[in-house]
C-alpha cells in the first residue's frame, strides 16, 4: 500500500480505511462470497477501482461487482448486493483483540 504505479486497480486492502470509518472491526480480513460466481475469499483480495466517484470492488474470479462504497459529505453509501455473506473474524467475548487492528 505504498503509493501507486500506473496499474488500473488496487486491491481490497485499500478499503481498510474507508470501511473502518463504518465498522467497528477490520472488514478486509473477512471472507466474503461473490453472488455471481460463488468464489469465497478475503475482502482484501477484491479488485478495487476508484476512488472517484466511489470505490467499486470486483471479484477477482469473475470481475463482477461485489461491493460499492461512496463517501459523501455527510453519509456513506455501502452497496453489498454482490456479496452473499461476510464471515468476519472476531475474538470470543472477553478475549483480547485478535483481528489485526493493533495490539490490544
Amino acid at each position, binding site marked *: *500500500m*505504498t503509493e501507486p504505479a500506473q496499474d*488500473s486497480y488496487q486491491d481490497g486492502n485499500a478499503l481498510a*480505511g474507508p470501511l473502518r470509518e463504518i465498522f*467497528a472491526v*477490520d472488514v478486509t480480513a473477512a471472507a466474503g462470497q461473490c453472488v455471481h460466481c460463488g468464489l469465497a475469499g478475503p475482502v*482484501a483480495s477484491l479488485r478495487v477501482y476508484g476512488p472517484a466517484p466511489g470505490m467499486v470492488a470486483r471479484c477477482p474470479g469473475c470481475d463482477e461487482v461485489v461491493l460499492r462504497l461512496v463517501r459523501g459529505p455527510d453519509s456513506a453509501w455501502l452497496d453489498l448486493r454482490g456479496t452473499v455473506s461476510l464471515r468476519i473474524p472476531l475474538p470470543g467475548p472477553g478475549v483480547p*483483540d485478535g483481528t*489485526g487492528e493493533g495490539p490490544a
Partner: protein
Amino acid sequence: MNGRRLVWRIARLVEIRDETPSARTLVLQIPGWPGHLAGQHVDVRLTAEDGYSTQRSYSIAAPADGERVELTVQRVPDGEVSPYLTEELTVGDEVEIRGPVGGWFVWRPNGTAPVLLVAGGSGIVPLMAMIRARRQAGSRTPFRLIYSLREPGERYYAEELRLPHPGLDVTYLYTRAVPDGWARPVGRLTIADMNTGGWPADFGPECYICGPTGFVETASDILLAMGHDARAIKTERFGPTGG
C-alpha cells in the same frame, strides 16, 4: 482497538531519512497512537489553505514504537501527495493521519510458520516492517526475502539489510542493471528465483507478496504452480491513486 472509532490524528514529522534519490522515510510522532501490526497501513490527508483535501494510503515501515510511526514514501512524478511528502515536508511540519488499518496483510510475531516475503520495488515497505517486527520480538521464525527491483541504487533500507540477521535470507533480483560481477542476469522474477530464494511448499510457509499489480500476479501464480496453498499467500498491490 476494536470498537474504537477511526479518527484523524495530527502527526508531526520528527525525522527524515533518505532511502534513495526518490524515496524517503518519514518518522512521525502521533499523540494517542494506539499501536499497530507489521503490514498495516495508514491514510495520510493533506488539506490546502482553500480547504481542498486529498488522501493516500501508505504502508507503515517499522513495528510499533510508542507514538513513533515510520512511513517510506516513493515520489510519484506528477503525483498530488507524494512530491509534497518527499520534497517539501520538513521536520516540525504536521500532516493528518488515520489508522492503523488493514487486518489481513499482517504478520504477528507469535507466528511460527516459516515466512516468505516477495517485494517488487517499493513493495518492500510493509515487508520491512515484518522483518523489523521479527527482530524486535526476538522471534526465531525463519524468514526469506526476495526483493526485485530495477537496479541497485533503488534499494530501500540497503545498509540495514546488508547487516547479518540470523534467520533472515535476502535475495536481490535486478530487472534492468546489476552490480559488477553479479551472477544472475537482469530479468523479471522466475520460478527458478522462487525455488532458490523461497521455501518449498512442503514447509508450509506463509507468503506475503507486495508490489505493482503485474508483479504480484506473477509471483502469486508462481507460488501456486509450485504447490503453495492459496490461503497461505497474501498479496498487496499498488493502486492507481495517482501519487
